[in-house]
Structure formats: C-alpha cells, structure tokens
C-alpha cells in the first residue's frame, strides 16, 4: 500500500467512526425524546434532578457571571477609551453578557459540573450492574435515569442563564459605578433601554439548547461506559469534551440563526 492510500484509508476510518458516533448520539437523543412522552414518568427523579442541576449550580453560575461581567466592563472601558467611547460600557456589557457570554459560560459551567457528574454516576451504575438491576426491577433506565436528567436540564438551564445574565450585568454595574465613575441610575437606564426582548429570548433559547446537550452527553457517555474504573474515567472525560465542543458549535449555529432572523 502506498503512503497515500494508507493515509486515505485512515481518513476514511476516522470519518466512518465519526459518522457512526454521530448516528449513535442522534439515535440516543431520539430515544430519549420518545421515552419522555410515554409513561411511566418518574416525578421524584425529575424533582431530584431539578434540585441538582438547577439549585446546586447557582453558586458556580453566579460567581462565573459576576467576574465575567466585571472584567467585561473594565475591558470595554479601556478599549472604548482608545476612541473616546467609554460611555458604551453599559450597552456592551448588557449585549455581551446576554447574547453571548451568559449562555456560553453557563453552558460550559454546566458541562463541567453537571455533565461530568451525570456521566460518572451513570457509568458507575453501569459498571456495578445497577443498570441491569434496574431492568430486572421492571424499570427502564432511559425513563428512570436519562429522561429526568435531560428534562431537568432543558427546563432549568435557561433559568440559570437568565440568572447569569442578570448577575453578569450587575458585575459590570458594580465595577462601572464603583471604580469607573459611572452614574448608577444612568447605567441601569442605559442597560434597560438598550436590551431588546429578542436578545433575552435568544439567550434563554441558547440556555435550553445547551442544557439539553450537556445532560444528554452525560447520559450518553455514562450509558456507553466500558468496564471498570477506567471505563468510568473515560466516560466522564469524553462526556465533558463532547458537551463543551457541542455547546460551542451549537452556540455558533444558533447565533447565526438569530442573526438572520
């Protein structure tokens, strides 16, 4: 075999493997959605997942947003000063947080916090035969484990993004009024006048998409986990990588879609 053919063969194998995993993920997503609409429904599991994905993520989301908003205000002030446009800080912080940084950073924090824990939990359950035990107890793992987690993330991550947006803007506000000499009332008025409903809706829609991706990847990699501690480690690592990359790719696509509207 010539080197060229060998290279092409490798490329082909990689491409096939790639499309095969895309297909498996798509089937998994379809199965999750179809199970979500068919009883039995596990309300207690859903409540539990809402608590873990939503409530317990608030601190990390708040901290991420407040520092980002603060840093953004400083950067825009410094950058704006180069062409005498320091006054745009409230507007740019608002639009930057709401349209882009809020959803993306919350999405990535959810990938770090929620995707990893879902993947590790489900993979451990798989490795210790707890998934098999569920089946023998007439409980479908997709319905009992996957649907509640994905549904919870779909519902609650937009709320987290909304909270992150607000806290990020407040971070910018604190820095701008505290150290950059902005007038407090004018800052808030500028922010409120500038933001449009479409900005906020696009932010929340991104949140829903990222939440879905984050939880789905955690469940998918957990369910696909290999055996032993190494299998759990691989599943966890793979789930976070996939969730982060997919969130950033989805962000690009969604931004394009919202722009063209």
């Amino acid at each position, binding site marked *: 075999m010539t080197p060229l053919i060998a290279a092409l063969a490798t490329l082909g194998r990689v491409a096939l493997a790639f499309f095969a995993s895309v297909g498996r993920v798509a089937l998994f997503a379809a199965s999750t959605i179809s199970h979500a609409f068919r009883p039995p429904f596990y309300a207690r599991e859903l409540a539990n997942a809402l608590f873990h994905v939503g409530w317990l993520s608030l601190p990390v989301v708040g901290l991420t947003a407040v520092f980002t908003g603060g840093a953004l205000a400083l950067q825009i002030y410094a950058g704006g000063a180069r062409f005498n446009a320091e006054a745009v800080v409230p507007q740019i912080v608002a639009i930057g947080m709401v349209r882009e940084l809020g959803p993306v950073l919350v999405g990535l924090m959810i990938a770090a916090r929620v995707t990893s824990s879902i993947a590790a939990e489900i993979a451990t359950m798989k490795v210790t035969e707890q998934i098999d*035990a569920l089946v*023998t107890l007439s409980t479908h793992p997709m319905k009992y484990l996957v649907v509640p987690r994905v549904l919870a993330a779909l519902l609650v991550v937009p709320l987290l993004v909304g909270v992150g947006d607000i806290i990020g803007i407040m971070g910018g506000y604190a820095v701008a009024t505290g150290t950059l000499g902005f007038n407090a009332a004018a800052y808030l008025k500028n922010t409120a006048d500038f933001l449009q409903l479409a900005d906020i809706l696009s932010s929340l829609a991104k949140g829903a998409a990222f939440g879905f991706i984050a939880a789905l990847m955690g469940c998918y990699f957990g369910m696909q986990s290999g055996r032993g501690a190494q299998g759990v480690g691989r599943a966890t690592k793979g789930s976070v990588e996939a969730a982060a990359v997919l969130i950033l790719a989805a962000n690009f696509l969604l931004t394009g879609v919202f722009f063209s509207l």
Partner: protein
Amino acid sequence: MIEMKNVHKTFGTNAVLRGIDLSVAKGSSLVIIGGSGTGKSVTIKCILGLIEPDSGQILVDGKDASIGDRDAFLARFGMLFQGAALFDSLPVWQNVAFRLLRGSLKRPRAEAREIAIEKLRRVGLTPDVADRLPAELSGGMQKRVGLARAIAADPEIIFFDEPTAGLDPIMAGVINDLIREIVVEMGATAMTITHDMNSVRAIADNVAMLHDGVIKWNGPVTDLDTTEDPYLHQFITGSATGPIAAIR
C-alpha cells in the same frame, strides 16, 4: 418452568456458552455449580434478557422469553446479583422496596417500608439498617440487602447469584434456610449459583454443573455423592488434579 435449548454466547473470541440445555421445573430449586469464569452468571443473565444469546431458545412456561411484554415478564422475576448491585443513591429500605414504590406493584410508601423491614428481618438484618445507605454496610450485609430486594415482591421465579459468598457460616445457614423456605412454602422456582457445597446440599432439588460452555452433569442432589462423573467428582472433592484444569 424454564427451558434453555442449545444456547450459545460468545464475547469477542471468548466462546462462553456453547450449547446450554437446561430445564427447571416449576416450584423446584436448581443449583448451578461450576468453576469460576465458566459462564454461570452469563447463563442467568441470558434468561433475564440482560445479555442477548447469539443463538438458541429460552422458554419460560413454554413461551419464548425474548418476545412479548418485557415489564410483565420481568415482574415475575427476582434477581440477586453477584455484586449485590444496590442503588447507592437510595437508602437500604428504598432499595428493598424499589419495585413496591413504582410501576405495576406500587403501594403506599408506609406499607412498602413495612414490607421492606420485614424482608430485611428475614435476611437477618435489624430495622436500623433501613435508613442507612448501601455504602455504609459491609459486603455481606449488602449481599443480604440484595437478597431482600430480590424477594421483596414475592416473585414466582428467583435467581440467586452466589447468595452466601462472603457470609459467615451461621449467616450462610440462615440464607440457605430462607431460600429453601421460599421454594417450599411459596412454591417459587429458584435457580441458585454457588460455590459452597453446604449450600448446594441445603438448597438444591437438582444440580447442574457447567463446564466448557455446556452442562456437563445434571441430576438430583441425592445423586451427588454416588456419581461416577469425573468432572463432578473433582469439583465436589475440590481436588487440584483431575479432568478440570486448575488454570483457566
């Protein structure tokens, strides 16, 4: 009545089951013995549909186990896993009562809890373990909780994968009596995997020995000591020399 006909299962290049033929009459107790790694657990998982056999037929009461309503099928079974497989996020009593808290056998929480505590008592555990998490229990206690979960909904057919492994002799005796009682008093069909020859004699109506992917010997427990079969003889006496290789 459970029947396996010419069941094969291969993992990669490892041909584990190479034509299993086995039948367990309703209300009887079969014990499967055989060396470590011969496929005893795989055999049971095939019947439950947790592992899909490559070929062969599995019939439960004359009906093919792989077709029809899975939930209704599995509702008749109880299974104790070799590693207990307790849900580590749930307290002990919710593990035991898992089936009673959801699905077709659902009942009020207080009642489910009472049943769970009663089943825990039957496997020799006190009510104070009910609210602990599985990770806080010893290996033998976890095994017994798994046993309590397997029998919680009074199933017709019960599989026990090494129910007495890791238990002290007294507790092993308690568990043996319990399994015998479930078969005799409740008329359940039981399939037990064990390496413990005392257990075999205490639990079994019939014994099947798995070796090299097939059932090498199958007969009533009373024939165990009179058999001429060299494989079975080596297994029972625990001799390192004989037809069964010590390294596998």
